[in-house]
């Protein structure tokens, strides 16, 4: 009984930790894609934020300044994406890919030059990271059976970015579905001509949506390098941007289903880590490479529409050219 509870608690806590960057990146994608701009550059923006936040935190010793640098770099990339896909009507897939490739090269290059370590930053000291915080009463309630460990290790004991990510979901839902800005943002992604006729500046709307996405990717990347991790490693995002994109599609571009999809991916990953090297009854030990591939296989299966067809925003991926 004790063991089962311990397992549940540690799996739940791990799920929450793994889900955080996915949630933030998926919300970033939601703002961008709801406004009609495809964003496969989530990966690159996260990676850039991870690098610049870690290097800034190392130099200044401040996690918050690191966060600022991470956000700034991700927003800057989002603006380049905007320039290509909004102002110059370029191919949005190609633009996203270009940014991913650019960042994948630039970050290890700069890491090597600035810190003389091949493709990585030195370890960020704890003082310059976002450390787990203990919520009030975590220790006092910790001894209460059942609820105590849950509160102590699942609800409490994460860094501030985890709580921000969770809070970002209702906030994003409110902005997108309860404000005039959100209504217009969604409408721009469905029928930009109608909005243009109504006097709304389509390009400006989309730029703002991308900027919000940049901020969220900045948080996600910062979390990876100075929240969950302690330093930047080459390609440390490892496909999370694409998993987030898949979660967004699977969640039908809606906040709560997307959140659940992120939890599903994160849970798979948490289980994946525990399965490594553990013999399963009747099967034996599954090779670690196969277990690591589970989240990717799951993504393909989910996208294969075994759970229902997703309907994308109507104007997604289409540049808006004002008719004359």
């Amino acid at each position, binding site marked *: 009984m004790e063991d089962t509870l311990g397992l549940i608690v540690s799996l739940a806590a791990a799920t929450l930790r793994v889900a955080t960057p996915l949630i933030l990146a998926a919300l970033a994608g939601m703002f961008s894609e709801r406004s009609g701009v495809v964003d*496969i550059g989530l990966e690159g923006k996260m990676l850039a934020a991870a690098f610049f936040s870690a290097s800034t935190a190392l130099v200044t010793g401040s996690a918050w300044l690191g966060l600022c640098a991470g956000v700034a770099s991700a927003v800057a990339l989002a603006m*380049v994406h905007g*320039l*290509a*896909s909004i*102002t*110059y*009507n*370029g*191919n*949005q*897939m*190609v*633009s996203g*890919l*270009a*940014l*991913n*490739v*650019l*960042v*994948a*090269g*630039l970050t*290890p*290059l*700069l890491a*090597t*030059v600035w810190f003389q370590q*091949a*493709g990585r930053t030195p370890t960020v000291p704890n003082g310059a990271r976002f450390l787990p915080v203990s919520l009030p009463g975590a220790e006092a309630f910790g001894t209460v059976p059942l609820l105590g460990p849950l509160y102590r290790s699942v609800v409490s004991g994460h860094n501030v970015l985890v709580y921000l990510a969770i809070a970002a979901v209702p906030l994003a839902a409110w902005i997108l579905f309860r404000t005039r800005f959100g209504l217009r943002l969604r409408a721009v992604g469905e029928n930009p001509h109608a909005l243009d006729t109504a006097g709304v500046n389509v390009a400006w709307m989309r730029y703002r949506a991308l900027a919000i996405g940049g901020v969220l990717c900045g948080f996600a990347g910062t979390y990876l390098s100075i929240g969950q991790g302690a330093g930047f490693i080459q390609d440390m995002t490892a*496909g999370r941007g*694409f998993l987030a*994109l*898949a979660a967004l*599609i699977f969640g039908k571009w809606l906040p709560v289903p997307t959140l659940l999809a992120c939890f599903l991916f994160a849970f798979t990953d948490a289980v994946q880590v525990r399965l490594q090297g553990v013999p399963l009854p009747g099967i034996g030990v599954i*090779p670690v*490479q*196969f277990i*690591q*591939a589970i989240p*990717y*296989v799951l*993504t*393909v299966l989910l*996208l*294969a*529409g075994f759970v229902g*067809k997703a309907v994308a925003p109507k104007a997604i991926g289409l*540049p808006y*050219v004002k008719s*004359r």
Partner: protein
Amino acid sequence: MAAAGGPTDTLPRWASLALLPALNISAALLLSGLVVWLIGEDPVEAMVLLVQGAVGYPEAIGYTLYYATSYILTGLAVAIAFHAGLFNIGGEGQAYIAGLGVTLVALGLFGYPWWLVLPVAILAGALFGAAWAFLPGWLQAYRGSHVVVTTIMFNFIASSVMVWLLVEVLIAPGQQSPESRPFSPASVLPAMHTLFGAIGVKIGNSPLNLSLVVALLAALGFHIFIWHTRWGYEVRAVGHNETAAVYAGIPVKRTIVLAMALSGALAGLMPLNEVLGVQHRLLVNFTGGAGFVGIAVALMGRNHAVGIVLAAILFGALTQGGSELAFEKPAISRDMIVVIQGLIILFSGALENLFRAPLARLLRTA
């Protein structure tokens, strides 16, 4: 897609095919120079080293063409999918899995002469690559799963499968590093310097091998298929306007699957160069990003066979020159090549309209 200032900005053919790509690449190189300058090196000196390293002496040219061979094949792979309106980011995984097919043939026909192994290896590579691209293609056509996301996932899955195979199954007995046992020297593709040496022409020693000829033939086949066959016409029709293709009686779903399978087959020829031609064994990550370079090559080459061959040579030169540069100037690591690739994709792909409208205006007034 309409250009920035509306559909009136049509460029003359020569400007669209030569001047615009030249402008785009200049912009990318200029920004790359800025990066070099920012990390405290001299961009002019770096550029000179890069060009010298790429084409400055006979061996360098051989290396450049050796890299170009792989890029021609992955570039054609991306281009054929582009013609069908599909963005195949999975060339990397498709080539990786195809390496398995080529290796199985080379080891299965151990000791047979290369001219017997080569056709079977071509078939195996194409088949394995096509199979790995077939599934994302099928899922796109019949289940609506986005091919960009699925092909990326298939890259990750391919990597896992291949590492497992190399670590657990194919690893040479008594070997520590995860690689297969070497092929028979008789079965591997002859190097170009050996072939040319046999007819009395001396060229520099390099990994350049017979697969360059295979790549060029593939480019020719690609051209004929896309522009001179009914299937190629159907592929282009689906890429231009899916709805119109339906009304024209074209089986859209089947065409999408066909285009993806052919794309995978072309990417699947890449291991002929790297595995059968140079390494003579299967290695972890032998693809080395060639699948992604193929995207840049297809974009730069405007999805045309001749353009792709030229763009592949350019990227081959970039890879070879970049390696030399990294050797001469350790501060500029090989990651710089990836930065330049990213910038080229950005300027010649995503930002292609940046110079189009001003150029059209300029040419009209001139």
